[in-house]
């Protein structure tokens, strides 16, 4: 579910915490077969696959149009005020989605390359969130006592920070030559993992009392081995569900950071930056605003559909 971005909490609200999944392989397979029957989720997957392909083949696509993402064509603009000539943001046979005011970059090329940034940041942040949250949360749940105490307090501390404000401040204090994409991933993931971390901790607390863990212990398996071989695989359901639910939040977060001036920096093309640039142009060049806005919306929407599908597939109670 959605991040309350404006409040700064990048926390998805997950209703699946209630019941720990049973420790068998079966439910995952069942869940996937349920997912295959979910039209919304399939549509979402379709769109996502399309976006991924676009991102992967960005270079080839822009070679077709002949305009790289950073090539400028100022000559096609109005030479007095820099606005695109013609309706729909200067869209024509050469520039299918129009050109950028002032500088004349091909918007299609930037959208295509922007897909990379959007995906890399959202997936990277999600991966970091899941790995950190899964591993650290599992450790806390599996080793009650001092370890749990320390980890839980660290999670409490991170959860106490006003998220968006702190994200902005952190990005501001890191040296300017640090790669910005990586920084955003580190900050989003680094502040976002405690939500799933807490959830995992609770799940592991109950899992570790199950018979199959006892059995593994009786057969002489070490604690770490049990944690990684027995416990973590059983968390794949909730972790996967959580992952699909946070991705759209991180897509939106990247755009929000750009809006506030601390996101991805040009010349790297990113949807958030394009949107931030275009927002003031709503009255004179609506196409300029609509294109990145639509790209962002469609991506988030597709991930939301997938997230809903996965969530329902693993937690079928919510469906009737």
């Amino acid at each position, binding site marked *: 579910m959605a991040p309350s971005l404006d409040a700064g909490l990048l926390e998805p609200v997950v209703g699946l915490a209630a019941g720990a999944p049973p420790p068998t392989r079966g439910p995952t397979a069942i869940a996937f077969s349920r997912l295959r029957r979910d039209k919304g989720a399939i549509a979402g997957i379709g769109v996502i696959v399309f976006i991924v392909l676009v991102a992967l083949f960005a270079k080839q696509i822009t070679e077709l149009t002949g305009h790289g993402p*950073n090539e400028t064509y*100022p000559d096609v*603009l109005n030479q007095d*005020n820099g606005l695109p000539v013609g309706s729909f943001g200067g869209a024509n046979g050469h520039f299918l989605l129009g050109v950028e005011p*002032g500088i004349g970059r091909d918007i299609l090329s930037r959208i295509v390359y922007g897909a990379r940034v959007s995906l890399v940041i959202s997936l990277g942040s999600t991966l970091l969130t899941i790995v950190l949250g899964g591993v650290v949360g599992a450790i806390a749940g599996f080793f009650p006592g001092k370890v749990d105490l320390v980890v839980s307090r660290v999670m409490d501390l991170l959860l106490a920070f006003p998220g968006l404000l702190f994200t902005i401040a952190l990005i501001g204090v890191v040296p300017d030559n640090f790669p910005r994409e990586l920084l955003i991933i580190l900050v989003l993931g680094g502040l976002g993992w405690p939500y799933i971390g807490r959830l995992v901790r609770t799940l592991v607390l109950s899992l570790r009392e199950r018979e199959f863990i006892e059995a593994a212990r009786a057969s002489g398996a070490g604690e770490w081995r049990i944690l990684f071989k027995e416990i973590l695989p059983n968390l794949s359901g909730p972790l996967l569900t959580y992952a699909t639910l946070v991705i759209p939040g991180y897509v939106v977060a990247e755009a929000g950071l750009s809006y506030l*001036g601390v996101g991805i920096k040009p*010349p790297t093309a990113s949807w958030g930056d394009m949107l931030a640039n275009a*927002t*003031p142009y709503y009255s004179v*060049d609506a196409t300029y605003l609509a294109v990145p806005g639509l790209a962002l919306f469609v991506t988030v929407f597709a991930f939301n559909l997938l997230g809903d599908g996965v969530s329902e597939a693993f937690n079928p109670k919510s469906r009737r």
Partner: protein
Amino acid sequence: MSWSPTRARTRLPALVGLAALALTAACGGSTTKTSSGTGESAKPVAGKKGGTLTLLSSADFEHLDPARVYVTNSSDFSRLIYRTLTTYDNKPGLPGTQVVPDLATDLGTASDGAKTWTFHLKPGLKYEDGTAITSQDIKYGVERTFSDLLPEGAPYFNTLLVGTGTYKGPYKDPKGDLKGVETPDATTIIFHFMKPLADMRYAAALPTTAPVPKAKDTGVKYDARPFSSGPYKIANYTRGKSISLVRNTFWDPKSAPAIGAYPDTVEGLFNLDGATIDQRLLADNGPDQTAITDGQVQPENVVKVTTDPAVKARSITGFDNSVSYTAMDTTKAPFDKLAVRQAMEYAYPKFAARLAGGGSSLGDFANSVIVPTLSAHKDFDLYPTGNKGDPAKAKQMLAAAGFPNGVTVTLGSSDTPSSLKVSAAVKAGLAPAGFNVTIVPIPTAKYYDTIGTPAKQPNLVNYGWIPDWPSASTVLPPLFTCGAIKPQGNNNVANYCNKEFDALSDKALATTDPKAADEIWGQMDQMLLKDAVIIPKLYGKVLSIAGSKVKNTYGALPFGGEVDLANVSVQ
């Protein structure tokens, strides 16, 4: 005249403000080289009394304490609250850059080779509580600027007066006395400077000479409630939110011919979004009909403002007295070589850069540092390329200078979207000339910190300047003399140090005949371009709009082309 380093009047404070430095100074419609303001005339303006004027602003004033006011929008507004020895005339265009007596009876009498200046106050001047304004209060106001607590104001009196260096201001040194200012009686004030100050009539118009009664001084809190000697007093001021002014009934309009003060009340609203300010003024509904802004029209709305006749009629355009340029760090490779710098002069795509920033409304292309609205301005273009850049010629020159395969240079850019867009256009334009540009985005909050530290600055940095008063003496010396180079807070961002240039500067400063001085300033301006130290980009222009019921909305050059708040009226 005032500094506007971050272009405080551009709306998203600092954030977009720095876009300005990337290239743009401001926005403006016409392309004439001589006029400022819509109605160029030497006639003083007059308006109808009454009504409420609303000022819509993206940010609160940096300061209102006369010891701390410096940037253009605060200086403009400060004339509503307090008076100074002299003040700028209420005329549109160049005549408005002349000063007239305000508290004083004349523009001051010089003696001792312009090192000593004497002023007499007009009789019967009163504060908002009816008490008399005395010359001692003006001295106290000057003394305050020596305090460490109030460091932000224009640094002239507190660096040039006799006593500088030993006197620490009235808080640390309550028994002390500023030797450089004498007040033989309540209506006479005498300034003693260590060096000649030929431009004293302008310096006397700085907020530094506003009277502050010692009994009313509240230290750092004075900023929120300066005691009024001007046409209005503060009824209510919440920093960062709003201010409201009501008439000061003890102010005598007859004693202040250059100040109209037509509206009965003035309301200010701060921290509004730039786009919202535009939309409110464009929509022109209800109370917004009597509103103005101290900001600029956003780039995206320029077309509407310059083409829709109904809106154009309400627009305010003209030069803002600013110049924007890109400086080359002359102390580091590759720009330590004159030939490389000259190649850059030929290569630089001024046209594409201006287009990326918003187009012709931003200003006119510049070929010099001294703007056309200063008398020292000279017309010349040492590197004529029609402003488009000549990459072929530049490439040849680079090859001849020993870089046949081109050269990589860093360009510092504030990290706002608009600023980065301009930098991207510059990068694209310089590539064919063999300059491979690496853009270094600098967070807005650290921009001046970074480029003002020679050890950290990129090869190319964007800079802009508005004179403190309409004379080249407040342009060239602070920007290009050897003494201006500092390890932190550096203004000489080209790190240009030329003894010959410095000698001319000293000569011009000591020249009391303005015409002769202007001749020397003009010569120095050409020297900068011969040495290819900076690439002048634009003489900035403003473009702003006012509500349909606001009149006398000419841009005042002394205040960076902003509306002369002391003389607008509402219907």
